[in-house]
């Protein structure tokens, strides 16, 4: 039980909804309060990475699978939107869900051969598949733009209103993030979410209680990949240009570090992680080559002192054995 959970449990329902509504209204009004385009750019990045880290957290945190190649699904979504928009002239609002579905299909393809595998094997397969996806887009000469990437991705329209400024995209990302967190919250509280968590806690016990673990693991992977694809599809027209070197393994590790720093297996964790990492990116802009060094040090320090993340629960399976098996014999951690 983390402090965040305890506080949330103590607060009455109306207060929670009031706080949540207030936060949402504040975020809606934020461009009015602080209308700098620099701030809008940072906010767009934070919101986009919130979706990415949140979707990775659904896979890593809730069902306990270990995906470290999330950039691959993000890459599929971005390229899918860019190709549909530039080559076929399909409008953004149709391309967005299509890209999500494409990423989910790739997620299914990645997860199918790995359903029997655990931990490290799955991690390596996701790492490899992320790099393979990138290589395929890099080497698909005419269709995917090859090493040059895809330029001049058209802006989406609502009626005749052109969405081109970062303020407009701020609202799109906010809208998507709100949908993502609402849906994820509902799913985690539902039967499906409980099945995912039961797989994380003890796969054998879950199986013996009648949870079809392989089906739920695959659906979990697809759900996470779907939202990574959505984030990528929204990113492509926002940035107007994509190339395969935006989706390297470092990008995947970047998303992973947000989840780990914030706290796996919590809804708030990825938001916190995304805010911290993106602010760090802004602060470290003068010495930007040290950016990934700082992330790496943060990951190591987090694993040393707080493996469950900043807002993670101390009794979660992700906490270190010393805390989790308090009062029991110490070697219990080895059974995992």
């Amino acid at each position: 039980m983390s402090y965040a959970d305890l506080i949330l449990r103590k607060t009455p329902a109306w207060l929670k909804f009031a706080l949540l509504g207030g936060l949402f209204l504040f975020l809606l009004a934020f461009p009015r309060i602080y209308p700098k385009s620099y701030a809008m750019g940072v906010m767009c990045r934070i919101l986009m990475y919130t979706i990415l880290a949140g979707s990775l957290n659904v896979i890593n945190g809730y069902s306990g699978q270990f995906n470290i190649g999330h950039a691959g699904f993000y890459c599929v979504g971005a390229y899918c939107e860019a190709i549909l928009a530039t080559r076929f002239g399909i409008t953004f609002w149709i391309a967005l869900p299509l890209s999500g579905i494409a990423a989910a299909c790739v997620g299914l393809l990645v997860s199918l051969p790995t359903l029997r595998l655990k931990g490290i094997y799955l991690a390596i397969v996701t790492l490899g598949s992320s790099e393979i996806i990138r290589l395929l887009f890099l080497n698909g000469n005419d269709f995917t733009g090859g090493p040059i990437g895809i330029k001049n991705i058209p802006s989406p329209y609502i009626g005749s209103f052109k969405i081109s400024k970062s303020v407009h995209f701020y609202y799109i990302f906010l809208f998507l993030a709100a949908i993502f967190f609402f849906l994820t919250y509902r799913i985690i509280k539902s039967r499906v979410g409980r099945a995912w968590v039961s797989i994380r806690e003890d796969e054998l016990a879950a199986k013996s209680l009648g949870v079809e673990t392989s089906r739920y693991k695959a659906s979990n992977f697809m759900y996470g990949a779907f939202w990574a694809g959505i984030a990528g599809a929204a990113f492509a027209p926002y940035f107007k240009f994509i190339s395969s070197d935006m989706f390297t393994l470092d990008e995947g590790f970047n998303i992973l570090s947000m989840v780990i720093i914030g706290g796996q297996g919590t809804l708030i964790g990825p938001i916190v992680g995304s805010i911290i990492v993106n602010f760090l990116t802004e602060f470290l802009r003068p010495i930007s080559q040290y950016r990934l060094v700082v992330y790496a040090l943060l990951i190591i320090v987090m694993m040393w002192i707080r493996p469950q993340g900043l807002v993670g629960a101390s009794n979660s399976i992700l906490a270190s054995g010393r805390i989790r098996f308090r009062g029991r014999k110490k070697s219990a951690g080895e059974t995992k």
Partner: protein
Amino acid sequence: MDYYLSQLINGICQGSIYALMAIGYSVVVGVVGLVTFTHGEVIMLGAFASYFAFQIFGNNLFLGIVASFAASAFIGIFVYKVCYERFFDAPRHISLICTIGVSMLLKNLTQIFIGANNFPLLEIIPNRFFGWGTVGVTLVQIIVIVTVVSLSLLLFLFFNKTRWGVMLRAVSQDKKAAALMGINVKLTTLAGNCIGCGLGGIAGMLLAIYYQTLIATMGGSAGMKAFSASVLGGLTDVPSAALGGLCLGVIENLGITVSSASFRDIFAFIFLLLVLLFKPEGFARKKGVRP
């Protein structure tokens, strides 16, 4: 036909380098009992150490081997202290994430302090060609294969004939029982980790000599190939890991005959997937430490 034959020879040569990487990887995983992501970066740093040794002392292959082994073994101590030492009793994924962090750290520090560009490594071994017609072997390939085979024999003798080797095998089979027999488990684990990392470093040097270039980002694909090859041995069995490396090299080089060379890394991945689909536990006979 000649083309395929020469690709086969290339494959065996490259496969022997992969085999050395995989041997190092399975020694590390077997002795430490935890899976690592730092092996690619260890390989890369070994290659850089040999590069600087060649710059300073001239083209002396033996000194290059010593330098890459020493540097990688030193990195092995660092990795042990940061990622393994305090996490033997904790859930496995904690040390796993820690190794991801260390691998990011090492790669980016190398990019900053040594450079992110390609470093050419020319004429370490004179460019000679033995053979008939278009099929044949170069001197580099002979030296690579001889180095790998002799190192493997040395390792085999070390594991089977020396006291330290017996201790290492005991620790990799059962840490508790080894401790009861009076073995200093921590020191032995550290030594095993250093030996595995050092072998990886030598493999990095051979890779750099073979391709005549090295770059700070070479660790990613190298580490993945080491992993893919050692999956064949269930990550802990050394001889099957070497066999896996050899297979991987041959499959890669025969694979690029039917497609373009830019798809080279994809074949390693396909090999990994096939092994995981049909033989996920590998060909290891003993029930060793399962990661």
